[in-house]
């Protein structure tokens, strides 16, 4: 190909205290292409995005725009140089109109010249039309659907003359018809010469829309800006995880004769789940698969008593129960929940390793007048921290200063210390390195072998297939079906996708 790249990153390194997040990464973006940026969590993807968009500055290496060396001192710098980005979290002002959101940049020129809203609306219209957005530019953004808000952000980026447009998981919260519409628009932008970067975990979508691909693994290129032609899914996965995915570790286990630890029968919840039935037996790992927004985490929290169960029956160890609070679930029913959001729901970052690992057992260890010394907690918790090889200078270290992998080990250790009989594990491998992940998988299997009932929530199909005995498929807050795992990736992923797509699509 003889098109010259708009943007290149050459040998980019980024060091954070204690970690080398990027170890010399290259990427080059051509005009008129959709470039997939892939990598597992922790591979360095988000660090690279932050460097391209000017949030971080590289420790070594170079960024080039049109062949010229460029440095972005701030996100503003990158925007001004034509690098637009649409983040996963919305960067819009909900109470401002669509037109004002798109053109706020323009107002920033002066503080006191009155805003001419009519002109603003006129100016916004072409950008909306370019994206087939049939909305009045005067509508407040808060009244739009999530999909449309995303398009407004794209319109805003385009109006800033972005020549490179990064889309970070743009389909994460879209329905399939909304995704199709987005793709039509992305293809049109590509044909107009924009260079798009598509970051996604959904390989089907990547294969559908991208023409070039860069894969990161462990902070380095597993493949560098190559054409998607002739690359199949298997190769992509191999590049991402460094081995072919699938059954390696999985082994057949039959727990059907074991007693039921958790049993939901036709459960409705205050969050909108309807008629959810599922069973987890002693020593069994049951997968709960679904796309983001399917209601899996919400179900987990309802099971734990954080949100009300409004119908049906919940049985723990065979006895019907009503769990009114998380404390009750943990202390009375010996249930545990490892949150997907380690930083805001799983751990108390500013507190010590010991304090975090001990929270669920405090009450149990307390002596007269509720007194409790660190020594008592340490005696129970530290063997598990040791076993999980948590690397920390001391037990008094703040958890916030540890790596993601170590943090995750602490959130697991705390439930091991609490000796729970039923454990919900929500997206266990977000933000941890591959080695820890493999370790974690072994650990979960060992736990199950020793009798813990585990409900595993994951959006990563390989993880599901590597761990689960049975997989429940959830979509739109309902269970769509059950798949018994055979460890064969192609077959199982196909059957799971069928369960999701069989469901009636809502009118979009």
């Amino acid at each position: 190909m003889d098109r010259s790249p708009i943007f290149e990153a050459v040998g980019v390194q980024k060091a954070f205290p204690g970690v080398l997040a990027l170890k010399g990464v290259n990427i080059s973006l051509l005009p008129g292409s959709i470039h997939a940026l892939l990598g597992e969590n922790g591979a360095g993807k988000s660090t690279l995005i932050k460097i391209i968009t000017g949030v971080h500055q590289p420790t070594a290496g170079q960024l080039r725009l049109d062949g010229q060396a460029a440095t972005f001192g701030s996100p503003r710098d990158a925007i001004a140089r034509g690098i637009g980005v649409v983040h996963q979290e919305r960067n819009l002002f909900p109470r401002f109109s669509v037109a004002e959101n798109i053109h706020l940049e323009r107002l920033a020129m002066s503080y006191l010249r009155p805003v001419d809203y009519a002109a603003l609306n006129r100016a916004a219209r072409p950008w909306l039309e370019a994206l087939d957005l049939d909305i009045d530019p005067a509508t407040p953004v808060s009244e739009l659907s999530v999909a449309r808000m995303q398009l407004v952000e794209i319109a805003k980026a385009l109006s800033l003359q972005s020549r490179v447009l990064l889309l970070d998981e743009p389909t994460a919260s879209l329905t399939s018809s909304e995704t199709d519409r987005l793709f039509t628009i992305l293809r049109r932008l590509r044909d107009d010469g924009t260079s798009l970067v598509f970051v996604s975990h959904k390989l089907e979508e990547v294969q559908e829309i991208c023409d070039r691909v860069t894969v990161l693994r462990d902070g380095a290129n597993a493949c560098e800006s190559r054409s998607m032609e002739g690359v199949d899914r298997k190769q992509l996965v191999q590049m991402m995880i460094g081995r072919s995915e699938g059954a390696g570790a999985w082994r057949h286990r039959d727990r059907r004769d074991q007693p039921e630890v958790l049993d939901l029968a036709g459960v409705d919840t205050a969050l909108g789940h309807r008629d959810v039935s599922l069973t987890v037996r002693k020593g069994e790992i049951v997968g709960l698969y679904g796309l983001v927004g399917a209601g899996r985490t919400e179900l987990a929290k309802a099971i734990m008593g954080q949100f009300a169960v409004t119908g049906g029956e919940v049985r723990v160890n065979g006895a019907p129960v009503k769990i009114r609070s998380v404390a009750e679930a943990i202390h009375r029913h010996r249930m545990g929940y490892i949150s997907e959001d380690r930083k805001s729901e799983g751990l108390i970052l500013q507190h010590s390793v010991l304090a975090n690992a001990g929270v669920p057992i405090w009450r149990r260890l307390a002596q007269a007048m509720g007194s409790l010394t660190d020594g008592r907690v340490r005696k129970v918790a530290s063997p598990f921290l040791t076993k999980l090889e948590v690397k920390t200078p001391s037990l008094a270290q703040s958890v916030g200063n540890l790596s993601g992998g170590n943090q995750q080990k602490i959130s697991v250790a705390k439930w091991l210390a609490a000796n729970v009989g039923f454990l919900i594990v929500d997206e266990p491998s977000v933000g941890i390195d591959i080695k820890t992940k493999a370790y974690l998988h072994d650990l979960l299997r060992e736990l199950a072998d020793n009798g813990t009932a585990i409900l595993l929530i994951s959006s990563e199909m390989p993880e599901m297939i590597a761990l689960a005995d049975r997989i429940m498929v959830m979509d739109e807050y309902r269970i769509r079906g059950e798949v018994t795992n055979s460890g064969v990736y192609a077959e199982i992923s196909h059957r799971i996708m069928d369960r999701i797509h069989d469901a009636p699509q809502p009118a979009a």
Partner: protein
Amino acid sequence: MSVAPVPSALPESSSDGFARLSRTRFLLSNEFGLILLIAAFALLFAVYTSGFLSVFNLFSLGRNAAVNIMIGLAMMTVIVTGGLNLAVGAIGVCAAMGCGWLLQILGLPWPVAILGGLALGAGLGAVNGWMVVRTGLHSFIITLATMSIFFGVMIFLTRAEAFRDFPEAMTAFGKMRLLTYLSPLLLLTFAVALALAWLYRFTVTGREMLAAGANPAAAELSGIRVGRAIILCHMLSGLLAGIAAMMLVTRNGAAIPSMAGQLGQDWLLPAFLGPVLGGTLLQGGKVSVLGTVLGAFLVTMLSSGLLMLQVGAFWVQTFLGLMLLVAVLLDKARRSWLARRNLA
């Protein structure tokens, strides 16, 4: 389930290296800085004023510090939750007036009246906590409203009149001197501070308060009843505000509706000065009882010393404000310095 626990080989906090690290850390800590400041100013006042070290001044300094520290502790217990309690002053006055009413109108014996007043303080605190938990609103706006409500109701019920007939036993306690210059009020305050330190370090309840304040979502998912912990924090705040008010009553020999100014606002500055100087930047989940005690003591000493330096009573408030500003700036600088060296 048994994932076989392996005997621990983790580097333990008792190892030598850690002890050395913690000593350096103490020398860099806010508490140590406060001790230095207190010593420096004490020296300054002792040299440049005549009466600073007089028996009378040390006595009244201790007595004032006792009240100010207690007010600071009352705020601290809520700052732990990441919130604040603007109603400390209003609750304190209500507790004092409640005590006076039980004593004077109902004619109850004074220990019962004091307990009743303290219970009223704790109860009003619990009302605050309950509302914060139930509405999910920030404690700022809740306690702003309740400060107005509590104070208004109290003034309405008492017709803004003071209770002055306190028994000898109570007023004598406020005037009592141990070893010629030590007020028993100060000892009481130290006892309460020790109890709080014990609460946060060595009890489940205290730990749960800290966890709930640092990260309520994570705390709840770890089995802590966050709502209850927060209500308890507010109750404790109300109780401590009540104790502070009782101390003032024994000192003044009267329960006066205006003892904490309009709506109890006069307590707000001392209430925040202690904890903020003590190193809590109002973020919750961390607590330094020692820091709060030292901070409040420093403030009391400064006000007294400045008055002796003939600065003029009206300017003291300006100095206290400047002091707060300088303190938070220094603390900020210290923190970023520590962060750069990876010590924090």
